Structures are given as structure tokens and as C-alpha cells.
């Protein structure tokens, strides 16, 4: 006589052996119950937070549509990326964004990593001045914009400033 499913009267056509416990666990199931058993896996699958998921969840909480709109329009003074643009693509525009959007990014970072500060390698040669570096990013962007609007006088002034920084 064929073996019956452990959960119903149908014949057991799936014989599963769980090896992850301390000793092998045998399961004899019909197709329906085997499917249910195996698909339990998929339901809890995405437990680890994805960036898009965490962002969406975080922004849903405690923010009115108005607040969200204002937040989206915030822009980084260095690279010009808006928070909306970051939200759309999940990629930041420049190192200064971590400062410019600090308040918005903090809960996101904690949610992903469970921590809020770095513990590990530091560059041996710390940037002489991070501000000077981000200034360069800003100046290059302003020069590009000046050239695009044909404001050559301003552009050449900016170029001189950039050269001074680079040397």
C-alpha cells in the first residue's frame, strides 16, 4: 500500500529529508502539501532589507505628502543632486551628500547596517581638508554651468580658482 501524506489522505509522492537540524528529519507529503511546505521558503525570503524597500518604508512613516515634496526638492550645494533624484536611482551624487542629507540618510543607514559609525580601516593620509576637496567639485560644476550659459568672464574666473586648488 502506498504511503499516505502526513497531513492528509492522499498518497505521499514527495519524500523530503531535512538535513539542517541535528539529525535528518523525514517528511512524506502529497504534491499539495509538499508545495506548501517548500514555498514557505519564498514568503520569508526577502528579510534582508533592500535599499529601495527601506527607503520607501522610511518615507511612508511620519511624512505627509507636503513634507515629502519639500524633502524631495532639497539639493546638495556641491553636486546639485536633489533628494528626489537619489530616491529614484538609489545612488548619491557626491561625497558631500552624506553631509547635506545627513538627517535623511541617518535612519536609512541604521536600517541597512544596524550601526551608524564606521569601525575599521582609516586612510593613512587623511584628506588635508575635505572642504577643499568638495569645493573643487562645486567649482567644476559652476564652471560648466557658466560655460553653458556663455558667461565666459565668470567661467575664466572659476577656472583660475580651480587651478589654484589643484596645485
Amino acid at each position: 500500500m502506498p504511503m499516505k501524506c502526513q497531513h492528509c489522505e492522499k498518497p505521499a509522492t514527495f519524500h523530503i529529508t531535512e538535513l539542517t537540524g541535528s539529525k535528518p528529519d523525514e517528511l512524506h507529503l502529497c504534491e499539495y502539501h509538499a508545495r506548501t511546505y517548500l514555498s514557505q521558503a519564498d514568503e520569508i525570503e526577502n528579510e534582508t532589507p533592500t535599499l529601495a524597500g527601506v527607503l520607501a518604508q522610511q518615507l511612508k512613516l511620519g511624512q505627509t505628502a507636503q513634507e515629502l515634496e519639500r524633502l524631495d526638492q532639497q539639493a546638495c550645494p556641491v553636486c546639485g543632486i536633489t533628494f528626489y533624484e537619489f530616491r529614484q536611482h538609489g545612488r548619491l551624487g557626491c561625497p558631500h551628500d552624506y553631509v547635506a542629507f545627513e538627517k535623511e540618510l541617518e535612519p536609512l543607514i541604521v536600517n541597512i547596517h544596524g550601526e551608524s559609525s564606521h569601525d575599521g580601516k582609516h586612510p593613512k593620509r587623511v584628506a588635508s581638508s575635505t572642504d577643499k576637496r568638495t569645493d573643487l567639485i562645486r567649482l567644476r560644476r559652476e564652471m560648466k554651468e557658466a560655460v553653458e550659459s556663455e558667461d565666459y568672464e565668470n567661467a575664466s574666473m572659476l577656472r583660475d580658482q580651480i587651478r589654484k586648488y589643484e596645485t
Partner: protein
Amino acid sequence: MKLEDLAGQCGEWLRGSGPESDIVISSRIRLARNLADFPFVRKCTLQDRDSIEGAVREYLHENEAFREVTYLDVDSLSSVDRQFLVERQLISRELSDGDGPRAVAVDAHEKYSLMVNEEDHLRLQVMNSGLDLTSAWDQINALDDILEKKVTYAFHDRLGYLTACPTNVGTGMRVSVMLHLPALVITRQIEKVFRSLQKISLTVRGLYGEGSQAMGDFYQISNQITLGRAEEDLIAQVSDVVPAMIDYERRAREFLIKESQKDLHDRVSRAYGILCTAQTISSEETMMLLSSVRMGVNLGLIEDVEIPTINQLFIHTQPAHLQKLRGIELDTVDRNIERALYLQRHLRRQDANGDAEKN
């Protein structure tokens, strides 16, 4: 060194040696780094990206430590060549499919590569055969120090190394171990094992980063978190679960041998038979069958093939590799014929050698 020379070699990660190499294929560490005085890649102008790429190239060129690297301008490579580098895990799909100035520097022994203008300005990776994360960390740490002498990294006192995506901030480090787990797949244990890994913030992906359906039963386990833990701790987090994974896979193999040796022997013998005699065969089927054969060799069920040969066939039968080895571009139909011929040549030759020795 040319790409053609690379094609004939096997590459570090499929060398098939190193500790626990019947199950652990390779160990890999990558670091994401950005230059402090440029926007992240997405916000870079073409000129910015040119400047970054040019500066990195010049530095590598003049530095003794990088004397043996081959520097490739990815933007000017053909699509077959780009695909070839992806198959070898020297560049990411993102770098291959992207546009604009971007490059990769490849070490002559394929132990490390440095991608320029991928998601971050710099993506440095070191690969070792078998389970060997400690020396991978020593090497990548040293290479990072050398780069840092010339390049000012974007670094924040509290947040660490700054990256384009907040998921990489802090150490910017991803530690991965690639495992071959055919018996856990056959016994349907794999999903359950992965769920328990996810609970401790480890992620699982397939050979080329794809989702659940892994090619050839190869799985990569890596850390999810990059912030708040030192590099050594992140490495320990990944390497600590590897012995358990090896143990599960070994137990599943023992179970299959004990409970259904005939079925298992039949399965690997058929796989071997198809690979030796097929006249046309897809890449997916090849991977699946090679996976069975690889396990069969490790269990002593097939005796006339060596593991390094199987490892090499996994990579040489990939679409771009076949075309590089043949020296011409082939469409899917012709590739499937070429692949069958290639498999016959390499598996039967071993057979013939074996017979000759016996006589």
C-alpha cells in the same frame, strides 16, 4: 598580455586547488573607493570621468607594484571581449554594459583587478582559489595602501569610506566565498540553508550574481553589512559559516550515497555520457551536467577526469570564451555545436590518455 592569452589560461579562481577546494571554489574580497575631489560616477561629466580614468592609468603605469597589470579601456572593447571579462569575473556586468570612459586593470595572474568608473570610482578585487580569505585581505589591504599614496579617498570621520550607494558605506568591503553545492540542491536543502544565512545578514547569489536559480549549483555567500564592523570581523562573519556549509553539503552527499547510490551513480554517469557525446549543447545544460560530473569525480564515481579539467570546462564553454578560443564570432546555433565539439575533445582526450596509461 592580450585577452587571447588570458582565454587559454584557467584563471586563479577556477584553478581548483586550495583548502576545501572540492566544495569551496574561490574566496574574493572587493573594496569600493571614491576620489574626494570628484562627484560620484553617476554625477560625473564625461570630462570628469576622463580625468579620473587618466589619473588612475598614469599612476598604475608609473608604479612598480602594478608593473604586471594589463590596462584595458573597456569602452573601446568589442562586446565579446567585454562579455569574456564578465565570464572570468574580472569585471562586473555593470561595467561591461555601461557607457562612457571606464577601464579595468587586470593582474597577470588574475589574482586581482581594479575597475575604474563603475558604480564607484574604484572597485578593487582580489581572488584566491579555495578557502583563503585571510591572504586575500592582506593583499587587498596592501594594494589599497599603495593606491592611497597617490589618491585622496572620500572619507568621513564617522561614516568611513564614502560610496555612491549607502549600502556600501563604511568599509566599502564585500567578502564572498563561492561554493559548489550540488547535493544540497538535489536534496532540496538549499533554500532552507539560505534562509538561515539571511537571518544573520549574509546574502546568497549565483555564479554571476543572478538570483535564486544558480548556474551549475555555484553559490556565492557574502556580507550584507559594510558599516560598524572592522574588516577582520566582516571576514570572520563570512568565513565562520563556511565550515557549516561544507559540513551540510558533505552530509547531503553521504546521504545520497547511502540512500540512493545507484540513482546518484546513474545521474553522474549519464551527465558524463551526454557531455562526451552530444553534438550540440547549450551553455545552461553544460553547466548543469558539469555540476553533476564534478560531484561524481569528488565522490570517486567517475575516475577518468580531473577536477581542474572540469573547472576549466565550466569557464571555457561560456559563450564569449568559446568564441575567443575559436578566434571567430559565432551565433547561438554555431556556439552550441562548437561547445559540443570542445567538450568531446577535452573529455575524450582524457579518456584516451587514461587507457594508454592502463595499457
